[in-house]
């Protein structure tokens, strides 16, 4: 049984004249314990798949299921206990007026935990922040520390599936390395399934075993990380994306 399964998923925004198809007929499965990457340029619909799954993008059709259980348009507490998400921008994903302590204790409270005190300490330790960070406000934290808090919040309900929406694109490379290592460790410790979105192919290659390439709402190709590293795409768009991600070559500027 797959942890996540998408069958003919369509997601759209707006109505009538403003109607935009963000995701068209997306079909893929993520096995339990697997790490699956979605890559593509901005506007290709890669984040929209996550937002549809979590209910943040309300207009969708098709089938989605989590651990074999179909996802409806209304989601219950068990859904949010299973699936959690880490957002792209740690400067926007923490409430500016709430301390780390308030953020985590509210999350734990909402999920019905009673032993909040020890859990907060454990969560902070899990994400590599000491107890001294507990009473700080977001403006007293660096970008990397904020993202650690956001990861702690996502881990609070003890989910089995973690959605990662460009979790390091707003961070410096040295901090990116720390956060990616942390995610790798947490995945091993907690048996997590990852669904990760990124525009950085090197990051996705480092984190994921299989990768879906998206273009303008379509999944054009699902490939293994080995094929990607070997530069063996089967779709021309993937070839183009791989080429561009290798960087700027001055010979190309001769024209």
């Amino acid at each position, binding site marked *: 049984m797959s942890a996540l399964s998408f069958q003919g998923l369509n997601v759209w925004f707006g109505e009538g004249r403003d109607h935009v198809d963000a995701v068209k007929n997306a079909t893929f499965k993520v096995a339990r314990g697997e790490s699956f990457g979605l890559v593509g340029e901005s506007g290709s619909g890669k984040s929209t798949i996550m937002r549809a799954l*979590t*209910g*943040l993008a309300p207009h969708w059709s098709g089938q989605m299921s989590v651990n074999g259980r179909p996802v409806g348009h209304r*989601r*219950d*507490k068990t859904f*949010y206990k299973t699936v*959690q*998400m880490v*957002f*792209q*921008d740690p400067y*926007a*994903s*923490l*409430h*500016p*007026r*709430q*301390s780390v*302590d308030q953020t985590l204790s*509210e*999350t734990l409270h*909402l*999920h019905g935990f009673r032993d909040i005190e020890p859990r907060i300490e454990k969560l902070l330790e899990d994400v590599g922040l000491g107890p*001294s*960070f507990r*009473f*700080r*406000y977001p403006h*007293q934290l660096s970008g990397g520390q904020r993202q650690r808090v*956001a990861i702690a*919040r996502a881990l*609070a*309900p003890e989910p089995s599936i973690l959605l990662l929406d460009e979790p390091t694109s707003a961070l410096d490379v040295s901090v990116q390395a720390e956060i990616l290592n942390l995610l790798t460790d947490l995945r091993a410790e907690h048996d997590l399934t990852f669904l990760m979105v990124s525009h950085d192919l090197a990051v996705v290659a480092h984190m994921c075993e299989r990768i879906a390439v998206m273009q303008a709402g379509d999944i054009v190709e699902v490939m293994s990380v080995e094929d990607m590293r070997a530069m063996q795409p089967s779709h021309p768009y993937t070839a183009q994306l791989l080429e561009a991600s290798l960087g700027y070559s001055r010979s190309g500027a001769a024209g």
Partner: protein
Amino acid sequence: MSDTQTGLRDWLLTDTPRSRLQARLSALYHGWLSFRSNSLAMFGLSILVVLLLAAALAPLIAPHDPFTQDLANRLKPLGAEGHLLGTDSLGRDILSRLIYGSRITLYIVTLVALIAPLAGLLVGTIAGYAGGWVDVVLMRITDIFLAFPRLVLALAFVAALGAGIENAVLAISLTAWPPYARIARAETLTIRNSDFISAVRLQGAGPIRIITKHIWPLCISSLIVRVTLDMAGIILAAAGLGFLVLGAQPPSPEWGAMISEGRRFILDHWWVATMPGLAIFTVSLAFNLLGDGLRDVLDPKDTK
């Protein structure tokens, strides 16, 4: 002594608070420091502190009883013996009446400041967060209230409910809330799509919790600023109702009513109307200065 002072300062200015209490106090202290650097705002604050003290200690500092009439001493000029600011047409000491009147002013200001922004916050955040037809209905009601001139609508309410301070407060509040609803709705619209609201929605939080615990704390600061800046208008509206003998009733020493009484002697005995006018002016100005200072401290848009 100075050691413990710098110790306390460092404890408050720390970036690494060790407890909930320290985190809260530290945030407050930072706000106070940036407020203190605005000298005009501090000036406004000190006027309001004086007003508060005057209201609290009125029986102790007022030289005379504000209601005792002394027809032999009526319309004494400024600096007359025993009457620093002179007396009015019934021989009552103007200074004492001003001091007692500050209680009424504060009473009106406090009540309006409690009712109008809270009503506006409730309507605005619900409209902004719910969207759809709820938003349309609530905002059209708001528009209707906004379309009336404040004093005229307040007059209509007082005329319907009867004259008196409580009704004046109610009338002013009913006409004052729509702008707050507008502000709260605008703020809610920008906040509701932010990642931190999405994040708490993914924890299964319902709309009531999101509005009260996550959206309100961010709207309140801009409302406080707006209320402080509106305070001058509220005081003037209350005084206006008093002046039209629709608010506080004689012999109450409400400042607007005092101007109204003094109006008859304005040419020969200018101070009778001018002194309460100056009091209204000073307090209104103080609230405006305070509001400007608070905006620098509280407005989340300016702080990064």
